[in-house]
């Protein structure tokens, strides 16, 4: 007797729950996204080429991609450190530290945005350290902060192809939880046996970590990196206030928003579609990686 048939008959509510769930999902999520896709598909290559050919759009993609990449990159060692300390050590305030990790998740993006813009801006505690010590050399590229919509004089810095520091720092704040939360379960599952075995075979601690622990966790590191990266390129509220309206430091979501505000739906859709494709490819990559790792683990 097929357990499928038995289950459906025993526990009631299948059609009701599934019907409601699918309807709600379609109405709330699928229909709007379909509208976006349809609009994008109906635009034709010419529109895509024209929009993507704009200087502002290209520079926004450059900014978003590079800043998100750097932020995710920074968060890999930082996230590893924090996850390591949380999982493997006992100390006072461990629970508090664990709770704080989720702050970027719980704090509204706009609030984080104004706070970061102030903190790292010329009047903020961290920003003051830099401006007062005369560190604003052109190559340090404070363009992200200096050009924020701040009611002070704006100084122009020569961007030598570096990512605006402000955007990168803001995205580091935002994407840190992704790396930590991806690493924590993996680190927890690592029993001490392998390391003890390595140590009893004569490896010192550094060798053990390098050759035993790291190979176990590198998939999680990559997954965390990719999640952080994907989140970073789409992030809006936390970064908006740091970049302001200067064309050189705009991020992709802001370009989408600007075009939308001017009711240039076509251009907005083009940019949004490209962004979605990039995110989709990233997440697909993560999925494939996770499946490959799962298969390897079953050997």
């Amino acid at each position, binding site marked *: 007797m097929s357990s499928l048939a038995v289950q459906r008959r025993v*526990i009631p509510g*299948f059609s009701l729950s599934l019907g409601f769930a699918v309807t709600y*999902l379609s109405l709330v999520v699928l229909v709007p996204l379909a509208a976006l896709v349809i609009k994008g598909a109906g635009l034709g290559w010419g529109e895509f080429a024209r929009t993507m050919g704009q200087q502002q759009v290209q520079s926004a993609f450059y900014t978003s991609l590079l800043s998100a990449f750097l932020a995710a990159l920074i968060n890999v060692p930082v996230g590893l450190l924090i996850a390591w*300390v949380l999982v493997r050590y006992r100390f006072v305030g461990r629970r508090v530290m664990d709770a704080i990790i989720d702050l970027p998740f*719980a704090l509204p993006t706009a609030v984080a945005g104004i706070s970061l813009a102030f903190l790292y801006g010329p009047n903020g505690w961290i920003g003051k350290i830099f401006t007062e010590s005369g560190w604003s050399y052109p190559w340090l590229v404070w363009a992200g902060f200096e050009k924020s919509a701040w009611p002070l004089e704006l100084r122009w810095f020569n961007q030598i192809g570096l990512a605006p520091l402000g955007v990168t720092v803001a995205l580091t704040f935002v994407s840190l939880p992704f790396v930590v939360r991806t690493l924590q379960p993996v680190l927890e599952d690592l029993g001490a046996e392998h390391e003890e075995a390595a140590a009893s075979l004569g490896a010192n601690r550094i060798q053990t970590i390098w050759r035993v622990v790291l190979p176990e966790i590198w998939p999680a590191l990559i997954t965390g990196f990719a999640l952080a990266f994907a989140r970073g390129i*789409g992030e809006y509220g936390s970064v908006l206030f740091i970049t302001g309206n200067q064309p050189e430091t705009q991020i992709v*979501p802001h370009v989408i928003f600007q075009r*939308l505000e001017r009711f240039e739906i076509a251009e907005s859709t083009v940019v949004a579609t490209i962004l979605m494709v990039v995110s989709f490819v990233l997440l697909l990559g993560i999925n494939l990686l996770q499946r490959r790792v799962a298969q390897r683990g079953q050997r």
Partner: protein
Amino acid sequence: MAATGNLTRGGGARSGIATEPWWVRAILITLAVVVLGVLLVLPLVTIFVEAFREGWAAYKEQIIAPETWSAIKLTLITALIAVPLNLVFGIAAAWAVTKFNFWGKSILVTLIDLPFSVSPVAAGLALVILFNLQNGYLAPVLKWLDLKVIFSLPGMVLATVFITFPFVARELIPLMQSQGTEEEEAAHVLGANGWQMFWRVTLPNIKWGVLYGVILCNARAMGEFGAVYAVSSNFEGQKTLPLYIERVYYASWVSLVPVFAVASLLGVLALITLVVKTWLEWKTQREMAEGSKAVH
């Protein structure tokens, strides 16, 4: 993120050779604390320090201003609609996915996560494409119903519902998956109908997961900025708290206290969310530990 939290109860105490020397541990812990302090805590603290920079009176003046209250009300209304809707969906979806087997189950689960991978502004754009009154796909329907979605409350609610869609479902699905179907089947054997089964058997088992999902959903609903901003930016009328913050920020040429005063309200919400979340994780862990003790 699961209701059982991310820390095991015993902590990571390990035997001598499988861990670093004590002084390395001390350095690493200190480093982690400093990094977290600068990266995460400092921005949070900044909000409150700057909010009170001109003293309590200036702070209070901003908080009790009518525009602030109207923003608070709008935020509350939006959350009060979005969260229950997504709660019902979350329970329905989790029930369907975890108590039954059917074709397309994994597709459904993947689709539920879609809003997470879409940039909030893109979600707002999608809604505008659908509902704008000039050439939106659904414009004829709206005109026939004399309904305004974009630049109006329904649009903001829809945007919020979209963004916070997965939260409850994502909490409940793994939870109910791990609980299995035995108890419900036992209830059936004992003669319970569907609703009795749900209220008296399932719901008590998932109550902490439900609460956890609701807390997260609510925090995001009240704090959502990008999507709501996109569907209502040109709307000079009411704004939710995050939108109001944006408006006050760009209008603050003299002092930043008003902006941070309003922001501190949401900052407090974030702190409460974190506290409740941690408490729920602790509670769930304790219940699981006691459960396994009781079995033995």
